[in-house]
């Protein structure tokens, strides 16, 4: 129980971070990309979690970074790499005094 909560919280942190990246980007493309990629991960997590909770029918969507299977994991890592790239760079918001 506690473990499940911890894992879900980790996902929450990841998704929150991704949306945050999208919020802080100054350019439209960066915003769209960050939020889109985060949504992909978030929807997958939701599909699995809700399926386990019997909220919706359980479907064969892999839980990102946890499910068995290579392709999904590699794709998720690519998404994470893009998010990391989106979180840095000259087009990120510059705060006053930083």
């Amino acid at each position: 129980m506690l473990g499940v909560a911890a894992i879900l919280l980790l996902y929450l942190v990841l998704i929150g971070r991704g949306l945050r990246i999208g919020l802080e980007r100054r350019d439209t493309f960066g915003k769209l990309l960050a939020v889109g990629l985060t949504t992909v991960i978030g929807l997958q997590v939701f599909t699995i979690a809700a399926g386990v909770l019997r909220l919706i029918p359980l479907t064969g969507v892999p839980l990102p970074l946890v499910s068995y299977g290579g392709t999904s994991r590699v794709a998720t890592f690519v998404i994470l790499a893009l998010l990391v790239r989106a979180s840095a760079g000259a087009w990120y918001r510059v705060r006053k005094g930083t």
Partner: protein
Amino acid sequence: MYSVLFAGASLGGWFVIGTRRDRPTPRSTRSRCSSARLGLAMLYRLMDERGRVDIARDQAVWLLIGLACFALTLVIVRDIRQLDAYTYTIGLAGIVLLLLPIVPGIGYSINGARLWVNFGFLQFQPAEFGRVLIVIFLRVLPLPTARAARRRCGAIRASAGEGPRPAAARVGDVARGPPARARRRRVAAPVRRLRRDDVGRDRPVLVPAARDRPVRGRGVHRVAGPAAYPGTRRDLVPRARPGERERDRLSARPGMVRVRLGRHGPGRDSVSGRRRSSRTSEATSSSRHSARSWGCSASPRSCCCTSS
């Protein structure tokens, strides 16, 4: 033993993220942390599965491959704006990947789901990658947010006959609104200096602030826009010039702002009223229609938003 291996892999991933980022920003640190936490999430799961060693080993191998792809993506995509230039190519590739399992011979189905592709030496689900590519592609949709942004910011006039390599506008440069639109509305084109606030925007918001007076007469710097932008890859992300800080540069995608010399030469800088440095005016007077942006070296004093 496996847990040690996995911990090593996670640490390796963390290290990769830590070393591969070229310009540190505060936010990247945080996303680094979230990625590392995800590494721990995987670790948890894999340790749980130690009962079946073969599966755990497979997963470990895939984890390493995934981390390698992570690093590879970071190396290839130095800036996500590189992807912006290949939107349609990426979208096409995504659709091809989605359709790949239908192709007889290489596509096959497991448990009734036709998702897999077998190339002999490797089997994978192309749809997983196709999904990522489609997400990148979806920016071509005329989303309301993008339209609203365009309406708010106006468009920057594109001027023809530019040089091969546009330079990015910088903080302190002067941006000018679209003359055609201004003529239509019978108002002066808004002109103002680019502020620190504009860094990263696709287009500067060209509503003159109270302290920004319009530029008249000599020394008008035009701002070039999308049409003048050559789409070559080298130009996508302009390098920082010596003495220029990365964060002082503006966006360099098509639609970037670029400051260009007006017809009459620099003359007096009519916004700040100060004379340009001798070096820049010399450079621009020699080549009147020089495409090189000579825009003033981002000087903090002319940038009204810098706090320090």
